[in-house]
């Protein structure tokens, strides 16, 4: 293993992520995950620095970032609310739940609430298909969610940092 990065390098989360992943085989996706997990998004500046570190063009890095729904170029809300839109959840009311979520949050899919608490996202399958409709807030999965349960969950999560 390599020696720990210098103090200045590790102080910056993008540099730290680059130092950690650049020598791996196929480093780009792990590196993009690391940057987004630590900084919240993959900014223009991050794209440029990642491209430089991996000897890729910025266009190549942007092309990869924009291909995958999970990565975002601009910061979202504090929490990500991912609604399952796939067939099994549709069979038990996912579309009604989506309508309820857009009503309760006052934003559409892809939107961020004005208070910065939530970004609403559409997902295709959370693997909870026998207990839908399902949604995921950050990394917590919830099943059999109806409008009342959604309101409860949003109230709980709104106060979390």
């Amino acid at each position, binding site marked *: 293993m390599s020696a720990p990065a210098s103090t200045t390098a590790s102080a910056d989360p993008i540099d730290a992520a680059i130092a950690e992943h650049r020598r791996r085989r196929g*480093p780009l996706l792990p590196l993009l995950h690391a940057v987004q997990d630590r900084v919240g998004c993959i900014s223009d500046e991050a794209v440029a620095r990642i491209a430089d570190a991996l000897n890729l063009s910025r266009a190549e890095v942007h092309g990869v970032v924009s291909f995958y729904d999970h990565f975002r170029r601009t910061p979202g809300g504090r929490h990500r609310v991912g609604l399952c839109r796939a067939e099994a959840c549709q069979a038990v009311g996912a579309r009604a739940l989506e309508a309820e979520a857009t009503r309760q949050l006052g934003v559409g899919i892809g939107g961020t609430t004005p208070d910065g608490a939530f970004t609403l996202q559409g997902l295709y*399958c959370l693997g909870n*298909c*026998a207990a839908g409709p*399902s949604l995921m807030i950050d990394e917590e999965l919830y099943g059999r969610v109806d409008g009342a349960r959604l309101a409860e969950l949003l109230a709980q999560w709104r106060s979390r940092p």
Partner: protein
Amino acid sequence: MSAATRVYVSGDAAARALGADAVAKGIADRAAAAGRAVQIVRTGSRGLVWAEPLVEVETGGERIAYGPVTARDLDALFAARLLDGGAHAARLGRIESHPWFARQERLTFAFSGYADPLDYDAWRAAGGLAGVENALGMAPAAIVKAVSDSGLRGRGGAAFPTGRKWQTVLDQPAGEKFIVCNADEGDSGTFSDRMLMEGDPFTLLAGMAIAGLAVGATQGYIYLRVEYPHARRVLENAILTARARGLLGERVLGTARRFDIELRLGAGAYICGEETSLLESLEGRRAEIRFRPPLPAIKGLWGQPTVVNNVITLASVPVILARGAAYYRDFGAGDSRGTLPLQLAGNVRRGGLVEKAFGLSLRELIEDFGGGTLSGRPVQAVQIGGPLGAYVTAAQLDTPLTYEGLAGIGAMLGHGGVVVFDDTADMLDMARFAMEFCAHESCGKCTPCRVGSTRATELLARLCAGRATRAELTLLEQLCDTMISGSLCGLGGMAPFPVRSILRGFPDAVARRLA
């Protein structure tokens, strides 16, 4: 002082999504308040999703199950002497005797749900290591032959004979080779990969190690979808433990053979379930599919011979090596050998994981196991095999769930997901959704898929709105033909299947909606 009562609470993501964490805490708190010593073990899921959160109490040498249990039920359950197996409406008795479980044949899921999934000693004591131990004493060709003779076919959807794939990789000149586990379980209605990874991760790692021994690969990768954070945590820990205990690493179980595994995360692209897209993604690119040939078995990851298998396929290998090819093959019949973990989902009363020898009919699955629809309304349609699978009608429910049986009605088994819809579903809108999904997930490499899915979505939207003419319906059919014969991979090549199955299976709905 008496020993602590052991209480098993499912820690699977589906159980937690229904409140299992609060149940586990509630039991611990109430037991402490009552001065009763308990040891709470978080297990994987037994697959009875309808009974989650499931609690099992060890009493009198048996595990007595209760489910579904919510935190609100706990006062009543403690009053009914839960910790001594007391009577209550939620008491299910021994899971092994419960008809929903007793009728199953658990081979791949033999260990899932019994113990803490990260308890290596419990897994080993249950016989988890037997497959790897046997494989270490066999020549590579003999391992491949056992897998071939078992009749195992790829459970991810394509149903390609696993042994033949392994043989191709084994036949390549010695050098760097890879084992890639496709854990990008993106099909709606499927959760067997997730349940296996969360409930019995060591069996998956063992299956990958056996694949490595068979073809001469020393490095494996698990490509896991980012939507499964709970499975990620379990796998991360399982890999560390497996290294510490010598299942993985420079010397597999103390021999001179190396095999190690690295976990990689996807980023929300359905196309990565297609094996060449997955390889592109692992290498750090846009997940655009590759032309074939060359096959990944010849030029795969970083241009090297690569076995790409789905989670369930790899996790089915240890039992084959432990019990022999014939043992596995004798479950099932014809070209459908072994057991199939079916996932019963959607609008169904008792959904979950049903692993059984091939041959169960759709009706037996939905009525006997599922208990009909959750809404209590009639079944209108069932989608089998994910978003690219056909919708079958209520009149086709007696079809056997085998590769041949489903092919006979123009459907496919795919990854074994079965999604039930009642008579309130708007089937034409489900057809529109199928194409919209394809348009959303298309990698864009080939025109039939990239452009075809968008144009077909527009036509289907017109049909749903009552504005499509008979001529436009013909155009849609032609577009489906073009996509099927002209697309480079299964996404564009199969997205017309659910659409066509609806147009053919529900002709009255189509006729009513035409302009």
